[in-house]
Every structure is written in C-alpha cells, then in structure tokens.
C-alpha cells in the first residue's frame, strides 16, 4: 500500500517543475503548459486526499478544477491568437505593453 506522502511528494515535484517552466520559458504556449502542470499537481492532491479519507468531495473538486482549467486555456489561446495578430510574436520578453 502506497502511503499518502508519496502522492503529496509527486504533486510537489510536479508543482516545482511547473513553477520553473512558468518562470523561465519565453514561449507563451510553454508557459500555459507549465500552468497546466501546476493545476494538475493540485488535482493529484485532491484525488489523493479523497481516496485516503474515503470522501467523494475531493474528486468532485478535481472535476471542477479540470473544467476551470479548460476554460482558462480556451481564453488564453484566444488571447494568444490576438497577440500573434497584433504584435507578430508570442515571445514573452517582447510583449511588454498592455495596450496598443
């Protein structure tokens, strides 16, 4: 039987990888993917606690979290399309204006 600390450690590793990616990468799509990795780390925590304490609420929250992540990515990619149209780049170092 796997102890709960292993799941929490896996989640911490995933969150650290996502934070590193979001801090260093300059490609906006890769940053979005890193944010997804961090959200999935939180989902692993939800499901692990739900399973170990035999409570369905955690898995319901994981479902809500997946839905919110999908909505966020839909809007994010649309903004990215507009960014590419207006400034011809998706490099985060180049994008330093809030309006044009």
């Amino acid at each position, binding site marked *: 039987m796997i102890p709960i600390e292993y799941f929490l450690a896996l989640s911490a590793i995933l969150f650290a990888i996502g934070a590193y990616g979001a801090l260093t990468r300059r490609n906006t799509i890769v940053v979005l993917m890193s944010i997804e990795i961090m959200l999935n780390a939180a989902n692993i925590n939800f499901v692990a606690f739900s399973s*170990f304490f035999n409570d369905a609420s955690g898995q319901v929250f994981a479902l809500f979290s997946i839905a919110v992540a999908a909505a966020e990515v839909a809007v994010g990619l649309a903004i990215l399309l507009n960014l590419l149209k207006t400034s011809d780049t998706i490099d985060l170092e180049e994008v330093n204006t809030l309006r044009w």
Partner: protein
Amino acid sequence: MNRHAIASIIAALALFLIVLGSILSVNWNAGEMTEVGTERVGSSLFDEYGFTFLVVGLLMFAAMMGGVFLAKEDDR
C-alpha cells in the same frame, strides 16, 4: 545559462524543499487507500454541489463565448 534561469532553479528548488519538508513533518493520520467509486462521485456532484455545477457550466459558457469572440477573424 543566464542569471534568470539560475534564480528560477533556486526558487523552484526552494519551493519544492519547503513543501516536501512540510509534507514529511505532518502526521496525516490517513488510513488505507480506498476506492470511492463513480457512483458516489456522481451523486455528490449532483446532490451536494449541484449549484456549483451550474455555476461551472455558466463559467465554461462564458469562456467559450469569450474565446470565440477574441479569436474570430474580423471580416469587413
């Protein structure tokens, strides 16, 4: 490797070590791993969190509308 990447590695490692330390220092008092089952998840989703489910549906509808509006090609 530039200074930005090194600082990010240090920040991510420090975050990981702090989180891991706090995970290992807590007595979680968790029992065995059990199977919750899709039936209980489904009834909890619709009984306890029915209103939240509706709000999430509204959120995804708004996100879809926003995404379509932002991404559409303006033909004039």
